[in-house]
């Protein structure tokens, strides 16, 4: 079955939609960031899967091994992971500042305080 053979792509789609849903549906800012992380992680898996070559070994030059996985997507995704870490760190720092300024990290509370101004 071809559909089940591509199970890693199904995981990607599932994770992506879960992450996306959490970003949209949850009111707590930290939970939104968790959703965002999940969303990004799904893309990491997408890249890592595409680098795989069936029957390929890890891309280390050795005698007797001819088929290697493609290391380039893995390297690319290392960069993207770094970007993801930076985004999360900045997001969390903003949440801390928001909590200091509003006394809450719930979206509804924040909107209510802004509207009452």
């Amino acid at each position, binding site marked *: 079955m071809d559909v089940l053979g591509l199970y890693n792509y199904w995981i990607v789609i599932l994770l992506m939609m879960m992450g*996306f849903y959490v*970003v949209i549906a949850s009111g707590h*800012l930290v939970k*939104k960031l968790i959703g*965002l992380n999940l*969303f*990004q992680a799904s*893309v990491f898996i*997408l*890249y890592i899967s*595409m680098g795989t070559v069936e029957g390929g070994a890890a891309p280390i030059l050795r005698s007797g091994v001819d088929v290697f996985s493609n290391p380039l*997507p893995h390297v*690319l995704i290392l*960069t*993207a992971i770094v*970007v993801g870490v*930076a*985004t999360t760190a*900045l*997001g969390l720092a*903003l*949440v801390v*500042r*928001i909590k200091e*300024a*509003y006394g809450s990290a719930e979206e509804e509370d*924040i909107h209510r305080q*802004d509207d009452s101004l």
Partner: protein
Amino acid sequence: MIREHLPVLQVVLPLVAAPLCLLLARSVWAWLLAFMASLAALVISIVLLREVYTGEVLSYAIGGWAAPWGIEYRVDAVNAFILIIVTAISVVALMFAKTSVAQEVASDKQGLFYTAWLLCLTGLLGIAITGDVFNLFVFLEISSLSSYVLIGLGQDRRALTASFQYLVMGTIGATFILIGIGLLYMVTGTLNMMDLAARLAVLGDSRTVQTALAFLTVGIGLKLALFPLHLWLPNAYTYAPSAVTVFLAATATKVAVYMLLRFLFQVFDASFTFGAMPLGGFLAVLAAVGILSTSTVSIFQDNVKRMLAYSSVAQVGYMVLGISLVSSAGLTAALLHLFNHALMKGTLFLALGCVAYRLGSVRLGAIAGLGQRMPWTMAAFLVGALSLIGIPLTAGFVSKWYLILAAVERGWWPLVVVVVAGSHLAIIYVWRVVEMAYLRSPPEKLSVTEAPLSLLLPTWLLAGANVYFGIDTRFSVGMARQAAALLTGSSG
């Protein structure tokens, strides 16, 4: 010797200056370094522009690794035009920032402020100059992350929530772009733009390519603030420090327009994006609805900064409208409006920055009678506003004229109506400010004086540019034409 390395220096110079700014924590030195770095970047972009003006294309292989394996920096008429807009606006906005930021940002954070500024500049220049799609994603994130920081430094606590909202939407946009790039790599095995274009042309249509196009368009649409993906923009522009609003409003969305052009016309073939895929009509409808709806929303805003932010979404609509016409006249109009909009929105936000410096508020009620108290500031605002509406002898007129000509050429009369209607809506929301400033008498107790010269100088520099490029269109139209020819030529 140094001349051949200019493409990489364009990006590396502000990148290296950024951490140095952090070391020079004392604000005046940090500002001076940021200013000098921007000025140097401007000089480099002028030299680059002169080299590609004749239609040449500069290609630079980073670290000596030849494309398509290494990262290629590629300068042609299209991005040389963008580079010069970004660096020139950065210089003018930094001239303004010295006084404005000293008031709006805590002194211990000013070193960090200029560091973030230079990083943002690096990112924007990098997006424009790179010929490698993954490198483009990295620069996109550099510019985005630093702009979240810049916005979050606003005085109002709502700057923090605006920055957070932008962070969430911007990250989703950037991740969509990343997915699109991944899908393209999956089918072609390359990341170099020119190589991608050549391979995609051979490969032809497939569902993966279609999905990649969809993800890239939506992702760039988010960064572009294309209606209805613009929700992050009004708050971000309203609560950011004045100088940051000037810088971002005049450059960030422009660079996103550039990304859209590069992907739709060069990486993908125009016959695919606009022929096989119905993207042209799709973008035209979104742009038209965006122009009319956000211009209408502008009319009901009480905060002038927010009013102009909504107007920015409408102006982006004009650019996308030009793109959706898929003709060399349409692209010329889009690129021309990109340049002119940077000038007019720059002027308007600079004038508002002067108002905020003196009044501490940019609410409509606060500026009553300001035409008498701050005549130079409000006169500059008026010049920018006339340009925004598109009155003859201002830059805004030129680009709207070209846009209407391009729409007529394709026979899309409804779009002509949209452009004219959008201009009329602009008259209404701008009139509310003008009426308040000139026809109301100032409150008695208010003793406001004209903004200091250090703020007026950059404001009038851009206001003057609005008039100059409204009369002498040789540079702007010439560049836009050449860039449009390059984009359509490679796709035709």
